């Protein structure tokens, strides 16, 4: 059993992965734990987040993050994800688009654990998530299934990239997070709009290589809003939605990523320019970062 292909790296601008191994059994132990997230202000918000468990699935001393750890597996792997729940409320895990072997998803009771086992049969960008009130608390993250050919998002050579970046979109309402069990969702009002858990100016840059090279943007909308993301100074070729390659990829400068949806888009760095803004066009201005080229 290959113990893990889990990347703890949350930052955008992942480096090119090593050549994938053949299909294997992959076991991932996640903790669902309470923690805090520091936001500009500074404001400290309560969160529930996923974290990688320590040895033996121990959650002692782990620090949950928003979003959770990036899980990266290879196409064909048999993947087991165990959720060790340290919260006092049940935690679900579901991955729209994947059958977790037990129907819709799994649920770990308070203080308990549950395991989902599935075959990562198709490459792509997936969102793993809790359900209902667990989502605004921060229980979500990215699952990447990689095709056999390194440096491609999918099986087709047209999905080859030089760099990849995750853009996990979400929002936080600290008032809700202060009392998630009882807060009135009707008055849910987020104050922070986040990319990978950070609000501009704290967001991470996306690093491009040079003109003519390709950056794969993996958008994952973990928030509640159907979010229109704008790219300036370049086009993105939309390759796939919800981990399904499009029959007809197209070029765009503004794309709505529906709540819970994912989208893979390939940016070819133009000949001119070194800094290309990527931002929420619905004018939530802290959901902003840049693709930067040296």
């Amino acid at each position, binding site marked *: 059993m290959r113990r893990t292909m889990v990347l703890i790296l949350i930052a955008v601008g992942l480096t090119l992965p090593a050549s994938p191994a053949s299909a294997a059994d992959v076991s991932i132990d996640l903790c669902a734990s309470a923690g805090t997230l520091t936001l500009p202000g500074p404001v400290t918000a309560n969160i529930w987040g996923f974290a990688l468990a320590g040895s033996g699935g121990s959650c002692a001393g782990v620090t949950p993050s928003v979003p959770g750890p990036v899980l990266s597996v290879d196409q064909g792997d048999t993947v087991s994800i165990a959720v060790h729940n340290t919260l006092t409320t049940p935690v679900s895990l*579901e*991955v*729209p*688009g*994947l*059958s*977790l*072997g*037990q*129907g*819709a*998803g799994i649920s770990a009771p308070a203080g308990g654990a549950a395991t989902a086992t599935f075959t990562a049969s198709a490459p792509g960008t997936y969102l793993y998530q809790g*359900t*209902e*009130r667990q*989502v*605004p608390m921060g229980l979500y993250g990215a699952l990447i299934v990689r095709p056999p050919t390194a440096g491609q998002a999918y099986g087709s050579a047209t999905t080859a990239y030089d760099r990849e970046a995750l853009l996990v979109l979400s929002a936080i309402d600290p008032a809700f997070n202060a009392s998630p*069990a*009882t807060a*009135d*969702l*009707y*008055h*849910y009002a987020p104050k922070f709009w986040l990319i990978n858990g950070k609000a501009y100016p704290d967001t991470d840059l996306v690093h491009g290589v040079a003109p003519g090279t390709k950056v794969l943007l993996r958008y994952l909308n973990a928030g*509640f*809003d*159907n979010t229109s993301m704008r790219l300036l100074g370049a086009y993105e070729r939309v390759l796939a*939605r*919800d*981990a*399904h390659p*499009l*029959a*007809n990829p197209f070029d765009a400068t503004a794309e*709505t990523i*529906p*709540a*819970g*949806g994912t989208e893979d888009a390939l940016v070819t760095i133009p000949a001119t320019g070194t800094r290309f803004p990527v931002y929420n066009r619905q004018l939530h201005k802290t959901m902003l970062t840049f693709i930067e080229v040296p």
Partner: protein
Amino acid sequence: MKRRDLLKAGALAGGLLIGGRALQGSAEAAANPEARIGLAGTDGHITLPGRGPLYIFGFATVPLAASVGDLVANYKGKAQHVAPILDVKQDNDVYITLTNLGLVGRPDLVDAHTIHWHGFRTPSALFDGVPEASIGVPIERQFTYFFRPHNPGTYMYHCHFEDVEHVQMGMTSIVFVRPAQDGGSALDPLHRTTTYAYNDGDGSTAYDRHFAILLNEIEEREHDADEQIQEFIFTDYDPQYFTLNGRVYPQTILPNNDPSLPYQPVSSLIQANPGDRVLLRLANLGYLQHAMQLPGIPMKVVGEDATPHSFPYVTNTLYIGPGEARDVLFTAPPFNPSAPVTTDARGSYNTYLFKNRDFRRLSNRGSPGLGGMATEVRVYQGSPLPAQTSVGETYA
């Protein structure tokens, strides 16, 4: 299932579904079978958790032969939401007679009603149902809308008289058009059904069961203001309830014509045998965009806005804006005894949730617990369910 049987079943389904009666050889339009449907516009109340009865405007199915006086006596104040789902066939001559019965709760309000055939390629503005560009039907008057639909798919209908108000008040539903291709199983790769979403020519849209589900929202302040003769400012719109076929979870999984919901007769429960090909006819007549997910089951979008997709695609997230429609196929997965299992009169089943991805919309009025825009897909052990005889049929 035979088409004729379905049409007969329509009459039996009460307020749930109307299949037009197919009459051959009429003097008016001998070339085309006819479907004649009677609808009345009036008011009423529906039930939602966490509050008292909610005032609505809506439509109800009414007999064509009855006099206006009889209709007023028997149906005024008995609107349902969602309005009856209409089931018609391509190239039929569809006559829908609308009677405005007036309002029990607002005798001072003399609003007309109309029916807008949302999404149809409209040959005449007279039948488009826009009162500013055609006619409105005043209280205790009737008007017959005529259509000869040529393009199968999923559409909507709604009142367009002061529609910002009347649509929110509940005068909304789905109308779908069955393709001319229906009736033979030769195209079905499994040779077990005669029903298809479109004239696909290759059976790629064959389905065993279909479900028409209208996505909507309810802004209770608007309904309450209407009942209390107050004005609601529509740009304050911020709904508290998120509905499927006029019900919120857990109402959505009660069967059709459940006695606890006399004016919300249409269930959204999806019951299937393993391997069934299920067609979801989805439409949104709320004012918000919705992202719907069905974790555990991939969804294939075969049509959009009553147009077959040249490039059908599989997705996990259906993003549907107001006024839009999708035709979505999925195959019910095998029954999994090791997954959580529930049991009802039909046996054991696995449950999948078809639900809004916006957690705010999985709540009734913001309160804790699953509510709102969610329903269940139940996949049974074995194949206990009989063939479906009408759209959205539920099995107790």
